[in-house]
């Protein structure tokens, strides 16, 4: 197997008496789309949190771009190119949709955020608009966050995370809190946008239809361990996965 863009080796994490990650090892190739499945508490979000710096692993290494990023703070990991969205969209409620995008653009601009350059200069707004249009949410640009539907919030959360040079995008339950009829359109938009940019995608998901349709490879978690790592067909038909994760025959 060729060396992955993200190499996780022997990662462990315990919270008191609970072991959230037991000797997790995985290699994610450049440009691939992985999904993480498992019941609540299986260790999926812990894995995402460790890769993105929210949680420091007790042991093991997480190699990205030739360096061990385990334990680095989130902002440093983000600057390296590993971005994430959240299960509950993390947005700035007092700002408009456009301003949220401008914040992301300011931080991810070519130069450091300026104390003098206006945040809403025409070029910055143009860039923000381009991203909003890419995610089909430009029509909401003047609205405040509490006025938006769950789907639009999710898209904005992902659009903000995509600002800058994204190499790996981790999506934590991108369709949770989204109306059933919005799930596939949202995933189509997101996956197409990320695929166009050549971004490696790792997403946590409970909906097996979405897992089956969008992922190239599936990691099934149970009790802090990876119990299956293969193509969607093989993983979803695995008896252990059916017993501990999906709860249904293939």
């Amino acid at each position: 197997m060729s060396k992955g863009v993200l190499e996780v080796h022997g990662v462990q994490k315990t919270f008191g008496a609970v072991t959230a990650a037991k000797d997790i090892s995985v290699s994610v190739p450049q440009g691939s789309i992985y999904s993480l499945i498992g019941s609540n508490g299986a260790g999926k979000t812990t894995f995402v949190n460790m890769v993105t710096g929210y949680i420091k692993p007790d042991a093991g290494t997480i190699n990205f771009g030739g360096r061990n990023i385990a334990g680095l703070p989130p902002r440093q990991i983000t600057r390296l190119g590993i971005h994430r969205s959240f299960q509950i969209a993390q947005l700035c409620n007092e700002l408009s949709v456009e301003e949220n995008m401008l914040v992301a653009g300011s931080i991810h601009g070519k130069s450091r955020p300026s104390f003098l350059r206006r945040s809403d200069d025409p070029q910055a707004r143009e860039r923000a608009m381009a991203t909003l249009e890419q995610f089909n949410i430009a029509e909401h640009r003047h609205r405040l966050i509490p006025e938006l539907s769950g789907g639009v919030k999710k898209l904005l959360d992902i659009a903000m995370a995509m600002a800058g040079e994204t190499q790996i995008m981790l999506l934590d339950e991108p369709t949770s809190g989204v109306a059933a009829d919005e799930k596939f359109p949202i995933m189509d938009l997101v996956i197409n946008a990320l695929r166009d940019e050549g971004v490696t995608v790792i997403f946590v998901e409970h909906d097996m239809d979405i897992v089956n349709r969008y992922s190239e490879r599936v990691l099934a978690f149970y009790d802090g361990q990876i119990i299956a790592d293969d193509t969607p067909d093989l993983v979803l038909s695995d008896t252990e996965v059916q017993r501990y994760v999906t709860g249904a025959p293939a």
Partner: protein
Amino acid sequence: MMRFSVFTYAAIGFAVLAAGAIVLPDWAMFLFAMALAKGLVCLGIVGMMRGGVVSFGQGLYYCLGAYTATLAANFLGVSDIFLLTLLSAAVCLLVGLVFGPLLSSYRGIFFAMLSLALSMVLYGSLSKMSFIGGTDGLNIGAPTFLGWAPEGRPLQTALYLYVVAIVVISGTLMRIYFDSEQGLITLATRDNELRVEYLGASVRNIMAYNYVFGALLGGIGGTIAAVALGHVDPEFAFWTTSGEFVFVAILAGYLSVPSVFVAAIILEMVRSFSNLYFPNTWQLALGIFLLIVIVALPGGLGSLVSRRKGDPT
């Protein structure tokens, strides 16, 4: 609608305030000069409020600036107001650079109480230092202006115009900052620190920048107040002084720069006239006034002119 640049507003602001030098009587010019000097300190608090924290200890820099100017005048013979302001600003900048990074990891009541504790340490220390006046404080002589040493009304006018110039320059720079990329990131931090960190910015750095700007403005405000009063004492760092600055910042809200100075002037006016007509209950009048503003304008006076709505915290 035509949109004026910040410099146009600054020029209009300067013209309006400078006209006070012609039309205001001596007592009012002094009152305005003090209000504007305190407004500078409050502008620093407003900068921090935009990031979601409130300093209850800006008296630290107000006092430090005042004492630096007074000590430089009394022991080094410096009388030029520009030099005194620069010296105070430099000292407060240095102290801000020390405490800013330390306080930047605290939020809410912890940030407020730690900043208050620092100002009270200065208050306590100065009160015990009898060689610089102890609780009685020190006097400072009239300043000179690039070698010119006015007296009487010309001195008061020159000092007033100097304060106005400093206020307009500081206000303009802070407005530019608030409208900048860093300014917007500060507002985002107030709303959602997690998102800002995951976009790749350091929330601690943002907090530290705002604290240092607050220190700088506090020191300049303190210098002007000391020179205008001709006296400085440890009360400059006492918690009630810091509380007064927070009062003005809440009254103004974090949305508009001019509203900070309007709020500072209103506070001085309400205090002066309440003190005159209701000497024993003026604090009650102030409290009722603040209550009315919080209920009627939760985003502060600034929400009257800003398209953005905000809460007063």
